């Protein structure tokens, strides 16, 4: 699977949300997932993508949050790739 990587740590809102929402339109089931590196848990974005049929995993490393967005069918593969 191909990773679409977004480092949004130094962007003010609403840019991080816009960047992820924009990339979600390019995400293809079974082929790609999004990996966002952010300074906090984007709870408003989580709230927004839930009804879209998108799932996510959050991993905290030091001060940073790694958030992985994917289609439900890709969950096992993404978990394996991100080591969660």
């Amino acid at each position: 699977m191909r990773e679409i990587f977004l480092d949004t740590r130094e962007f003010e809102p609403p840019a991080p949300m816009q960047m992820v929402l924009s990339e979600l339109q390019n995400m293809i089931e079974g082929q790609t997932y999004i990996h966002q590196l952010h300074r906090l848990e984007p709870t408003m974005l989580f709230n927004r993508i839930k009804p879209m049929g998108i799932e996510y995993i959050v991993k905290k490393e030091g001060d940073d949050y790694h958030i992985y967005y994917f289609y439900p069918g890709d969950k096992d593969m993404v978990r394996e790739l991100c080591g969660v």
Partner: protein
Amino acid sequence: MFKGVSLDQAPPFEAPLLFFLTAPLFAILAGAALTEALFFQQHIAILHLFSLGFMLNIMFGALLQMLPVVIGVKFQNPKRMAWWVYIPLNTGIALFFISLYFDIALYHPAALLLLLSIGSFALLTLYKLFNAPSNTPTLWAFRLSLISLLIALAMGVFLLTTLKNPPEIFGFVLPMHALFAAFGWIALLIIGVSYQVIPMFYVTTEIDRRVQYMVIWLISGALTLLLLALITLMATDENIVVTFILSATFGFILFLLLNFALFVYAVMTLLRLYNRKRSIKEPSLGFWYVGLFAALAASIYPAAMPFNHFSDNIYAVLFGYGFAISIIYGMLYKIIPFLSWFHISSRGFFDMPNMKEMVDERLLYLHLGLHLLSFALLILYPKAAAPFIIAENILFYINIKKAVKIYFEYKAKKSPFEGFSRQ
């Protein structure tokens, strides 16, 4: 498959907006009332226009908006709930003010309305918060803030209904009521919200979680000890003078502890802002700096001041107007444009103005200047602050008008995604 945007998940912006737009009216009224105030009771009435009228309205609005999106807690019908709380709350505040300022015997209906509105909202929200799916420092700050609000409310109702014929315990309950309201309700709520909005809006790292929890538990612990002391006092039958001296000493030590927690919070937050990753200058940040430096000043003031020189008035201005109200303006100037943008974009629009275009930064700086002037004058010569308090709140309406207008303009439009996302 990607299902596009959802038209249903965003909670209605009208619910918090109702409270956000009402709050400054009470601040304007407080400014007007300040010019004529002579007696202690009238100053208490004005103080409550700021605390209940301004801060509590903002708090209820913010909780209605933040709980679903930050904590994952939902109210069944936020708009209806907002109105059910809004009417008795604001009628209660108005009656409270009239009864104290003009010395008219409306204490009991005011107490009843405040008890019903604040009590029901706080209890329902607490129930939801204790059933929230996750645990974070912000969530704990919200829970403890609402518990403190309920305790301050119960004490406030007691004080209000016994005002004309005060029992012996009145003098002990009064400072407790003030401490539970100031540190328990107001400070914990601001701290909890700022743990979320400072990293989000100002591109900073989060404060270490252990420090976040330490601040919250220090405040809650000191307040719990104060409450236990009051209960013990009520249960014993000691000489009132001895008891007063003992409780004043014990109370002052706990007061210093509360201020230490405020000091730690202010220093940690200032360091985060000072070392933030993108040092963009903007007026909302100015309100945060004023608020945090006022918090620092308030936290140092009791320790630096000999006991007999401590002024309640100066402390109240530093804490209430300097710390709490400055930060509330700073938050609102970020939150209102952001929510306007968020609600519009949730409906699938992409052509709306961005957040920066929704406010005029020059007018925000003008507000910051007026606010600093009001703050300084409230310390030096309170009556002279009145016109500036009125002016800054009228300017606040002017400053947020564009963001609110844009929201309602787009609300009236048909969503470009309508018909697609529900397939």
